[in-house]
């Protein structure tokens, strides 16, 4: 096999995982982890320069390029955050050295699995990759070995497996629909071939398949009736993993869903997948917005905020059409960057305070100004206030919906406003007012957090034309 960027983004994490599993110590491995993530990111960037050829197993097109670059970028910055975060966890003895080796290896395995899911040109391979990503995160969520961490990991494992099982059933049904047209064997599971022949598939089978896929991968996206694993998994695992879960893994599952949506859209006789996605998106958004109010744990609160935003994104893609798809894509990118920045801040805050309980935090902007204002900026961004990037994307989602389905837009705006209220209510306690809890200065790495926030801020004011055309092309591709 000839070496190109496509093999690179799979090979680098795989080799790094093997190395990290073998190397002892913490300082060296943390650096190696960052280095591997950086190398993967740079390789991913080169996809824009030289486009590798796609085969029956792997594929690179405009759609997954966006996802790959976003995934590898956040993967890289999170590894930098993780280095300082894990250092502190070892110091206070919350994480044993033996587990650190395991943690770093798993981190790279997760990056590998996510990249594989994104470049898979085969619906079976994609399923395997997503399952692999799920299992690695299950192991990482339970890494603290506390009562709550084990419960969260178990719950995540059970619900994730059910989701993934339903997704496999859906995948089998897609194959069944494709077989009479394409013929038996490998090619009836290859994306590019499936897309070319989708118009002739049996629509009834495709419909049922999509329902299973929506429920299955929707569980992994964290859509409302199926979201129960998400807050626990976010709250109990190490914070870098919360950042990767929210910022990346949810996107990967969404990507799978989008691919199947494209397949369905090509078959005129099949049901329109849009309304189903719109409904689930709206329910998630409004439900999660209300759930924001009674949170006592800071990481759980932002986990619910992720559900809300995934709801908005799924809603946007469900509406479909050039503008809504563009908005969905932009919102997904902005959410990944902002939410991981927030988790970087939250990770260091809970290390300073020694707890995740919101009631024990207070006056952060006075005691730890950089962390405090970083969090404020992050929350302002995630709540969708101008002039930051999420305001732009939410505005686009809402305005494009108003033109077509005003009532849906009203519900969406209602959800967004409710969420805004909930977030600011809590932010007020955490960031302002009387200082509470320990106020020791944090040994934090601020660079990843502020880099993300700077990107989100810039995107709100100015988007490079190349990026806009790129997103527009992808939006067109999504139909």
């Amino acid at each position, binding site marked *: 096999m000839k070496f190109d960027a496509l093999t690179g983004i799979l090979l680098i994490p795989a080799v790094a995982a093997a190395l990290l599993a073998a190397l002892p110590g913490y300082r060296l491995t943390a650096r190696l982890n960052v280095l591997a993530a950086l190398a993967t990111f740079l390789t991913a960037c080169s996809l824009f320069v030289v486009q590798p050829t796609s085969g029956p197993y792997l594929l690179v097109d405009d759609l997954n390029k966006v996802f790959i670059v976003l995934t590898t970028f956040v993967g890289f910055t999170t590894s930098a955050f993780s280095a300082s975060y894990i250092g502190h966890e070892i110091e206070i003895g919350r994480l044993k050295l033996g587990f650190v080796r395991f943690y770093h290896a798993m981190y790279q395995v997760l990056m590998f699995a996510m990249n594989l899911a994104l470049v898979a040109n085969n619906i079976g391979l994609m399923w395997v990759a997503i399952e692999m990503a799920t299992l690695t995160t299950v192991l990482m969520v339970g890494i603290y070995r506390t009562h709550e961490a084990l419960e969260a990991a178990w719950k995540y*494992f059970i619900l994730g497996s059910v989701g993934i099982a339903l997704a496999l059933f859906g995948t089998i049904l897609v194959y069944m629909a494709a077989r009479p047209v394409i013929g038996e064997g490998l090619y009836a599971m290859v994306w590019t071939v499936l897309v070319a022949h989708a118009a002739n598939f049996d629509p009834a089978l495709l*419909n049922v398949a999509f329902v299973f896929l929506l429920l299955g991968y929707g569980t992994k996206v964290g859509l409302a009736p199926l979201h129960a694993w998400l807050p626990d998994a976010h709250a109990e695992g190490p914070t870098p993993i919360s950042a990767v879960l929210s910022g990346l893994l949810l996107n990967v599952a969404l990507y799978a869903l989008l691919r199947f949506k494209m397949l369905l859209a090509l078959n005129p006789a099949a049901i329109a997948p849009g309304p189903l996605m719109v409904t689930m998106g709206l329910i998630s958004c409004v439900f999660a917005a209300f759930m924001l109010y009674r949170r006592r744990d800071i990481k759980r609160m932002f986990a619910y905020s992720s559900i809300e935003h995934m709801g908005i994104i799924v809603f946007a893609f469900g509406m479909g059409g050039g503008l809504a798809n563009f908005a969905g894509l932009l919102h997904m990118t902005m959410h990944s960057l902002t939410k991981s920045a927030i988790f970087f801040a939250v990770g260091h805050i809970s290390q300073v305070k020694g707890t995740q309980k919101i009631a024990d935090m207070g006056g952060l902007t006075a005691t730890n100004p950089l962390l405090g204002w970083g969090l404020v900026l992050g929350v302002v961004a995630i709540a969708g206030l101008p002039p930051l990037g999420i305001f732009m994307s939410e505005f686009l989602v809402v305005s494009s919906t108003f033109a077509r389905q005003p009532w849906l837009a009203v519900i969406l705006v209602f959800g967004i406003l409710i969420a805004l209220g909930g977030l600011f209510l809590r932010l007020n306690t955490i960031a302002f007012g009387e200082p509470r809890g320990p106020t020791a200065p944090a040994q934090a790495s601020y660079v990843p957090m502020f880099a993300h926030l700077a990107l989100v801020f810039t995107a709100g004011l100015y988007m490079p034309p190349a990026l806009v055309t790129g997103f527009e092309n992808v939006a067109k591709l999504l139909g």
Partner: protein
Amino acid sequence: MHSLNFDIAHMLAGSLVLVSFMQLYQDRLYALLNIFALHALVLAASVAWQAFIQDAPHLYVTAAIALIFKAIVIPIALHRIIVRLGIHREIETVVGVGPAMLLGMGLVALSMVVMLRVTAQADPLAREDLAFALSVVLLGLLMMVTRRNAVSQVIGFMSLENGLVLAATGAKGMPLVVEISVAFSVLIAFIVIGIFLFRIRERFDTVDLQALDKFRGERE
């Protein structure tokens, strides 16, 4: 059309659904485990028969995995776990046996209605197989929902995966990728489960999920 080949495949797939029902009303862990072994055995027979009538030798591998791994290795391992944890007492069910059976029948009827209507154009063997497979999947789900004990939830999950294997083998000529992946995932799932059970054991005296459930950080 209704040849002997079809009849036997039909019978084996149907038996799998029947064994799924038998799992629903077992209220002792050992008995449940034995029924699960039977479940895997029927699956192995069914997959082997599919391999024979489809003339697809690679399916024999899937059958062998089902037979050796699911029908022998896992039940023995789980048996030892149960002994070590000392939990061979009665299973607590959330829903009683009667309602669970009624729900199960409802689910089977649902999957028949959905799948048979949808696959009207597919060949009869595949559509019957799919309908049965969906029933097994749904019954597995039902079992995971109605049980509180971690071990029986795992068994529910594995019988759900058996349903998936049945569906995958029923879909004629499905690439080997999927069979490997299914077997592979079962393997991983088992490793993970094993680790989890032992870790849970490290910390607690019970694998009853209700006991795990009591703390949630949020609940007053």
